[in-house]
């Protein structure tokens, strides 16, 4: 029986991109369904009744929710090619730690960069740069967070990279200036087809943020 894989997602979501990226890494065929978050589909409401959020991976009719949980699921089910998590338990724990760190720290600082001004904006900028610096230190001299190979930690962070242009423009700073090695890592990842085809256009993301800011009075 062929696997039936459906992904409920939105183009701009850095969380949805992680699922797209994992599926691309594994070479899995799937049906992509773009959700309108202002008018959620009955499928989405049925498949994620708890949070009503994307992404949702539906594998042979059964839903998996939460982007990092989806990526781990994909890695465990399609385990014979392009492993994303290391097999060593300590390395695996470290990969999970840094992916979790990205979500705990980067999302909030990024959101504040796009929705605040004045002192709050300056604090958001400081926090954001601090997080990037910590990540750059963790990367060290390795080509990827996963070591020699692109892995779970890379998947977790790279999907934020297409949002960097927006964060930099809102906050008036350059990520390259503060974290050149991290930005080299971004370029390295973007050289992978699975990454470049899973991420959104940074300028389109910025345009959508401008629309959002205008709508909610964040100018």
């Amino acid at each position, binding site marked *: 029986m062929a696997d039936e894989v459906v992904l409920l997602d939105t183009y701009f979501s850095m969380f949805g991109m992680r699922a797209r990226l994992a599926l691309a890494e594994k070479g899995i065929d799937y049906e992509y369904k773009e959700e309108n978050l202002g008018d959620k589909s009955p499928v989405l409401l049925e498949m994620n009744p708890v949070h009503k959020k994307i992404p949702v991976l539906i*594998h042979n009719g059964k839903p998996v929710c*939460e982007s990092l949980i*989806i990526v781990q699921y994909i890695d*465990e089910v399609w385990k014979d090619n392009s492993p994303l998590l290391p097999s060593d338990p*300590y390395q*695996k*724990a470290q990969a*999970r*730690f840094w992916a979790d760190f990205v979500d705990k720290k980067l999302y909030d600082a990024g959101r504040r960069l796009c929705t605040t001004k004045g002192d709050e904006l300056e604090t958001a900028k400081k926090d954001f740069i601090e997080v990037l610096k910590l990540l750059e230190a963790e990367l060290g001299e390795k080509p990827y967070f996963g070591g020699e190979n692109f892995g779970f930690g890379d998947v977790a962070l790279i999907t934020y990279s297409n949002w960097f242009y927006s964060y930099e423009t809102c906050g008036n700073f350059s990520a390259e200036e503060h974290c050149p090695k991290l930005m080299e890592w971004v370029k390295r990842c973007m050289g992978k087809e699975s990454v470049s085809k899973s991420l959104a256009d940074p300028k389109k993301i910025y345009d959508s943020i401008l629309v959002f800011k205008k709508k909610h009075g964040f100018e």
Partner: protein
Amino acid sequence: MENNNKENVKLVGFWVSPFVQRVRWALKMKGIKKYEYIEEDIYNKSSLLSEINPVYGKVPVLVHNGKPLSESSIILEYIDHVWNDDFVPPLLPRDPYQRAQARFWAKFADQKVLESAWMVLCSEGEKQERAVKEAIEALEKLEEKLKSGNSVFFGGDTIGYLDLMVGFVSYLYPVWEEAASVKILDALKFPALAAWQSDFLNHELIASEYLPPKAEAVAYFRWRRSELIPVYNRMY
């Protein structure tokens, strides 16, 4: 059946932390009795803690053969992976779909159940009323999840990863309710969870393991409540 390279386990914790408690239970379930427990005064943090958890400076930290790990859910998965022969029970389900479900609900337990109950503890008046409403909504979802499994524990016939992650509901919820003078988990409204609370606490592995003494825990959280109400008033 521990062999030599699985020895040398240290746990750095705080007596009343639910996150540390999970790790204690996991170590107990895996039969790891010989480990060093180091109590950390989280209000006067040691240099050890900043050394082994430089990113967050928080407990729990598990140090295994000299290598530190933090974040309770990650520690539990690590323990499950390392100590996993025929003689010890698995914490997480083997099936990838069931594992994904366990992980989803563990995240829900932290982000919605625990967070909302904490807000109830650290608020009063109208803010507390709103927090209670959110806490009840979160518990309703958890109750439904437990009922849908048709078994005593979240892990099935025996305790598993999700029971350990939700475990704080069994012993800490009543403490926070008492400290905040408000009832959230009404046994009549949440019969499955109420039954689970007592089944979990009476399970031989849980009953024989350390739990923070109730009176001291209530006093501690009463103090936290008085400290945090003004702080959260400003923030939220």
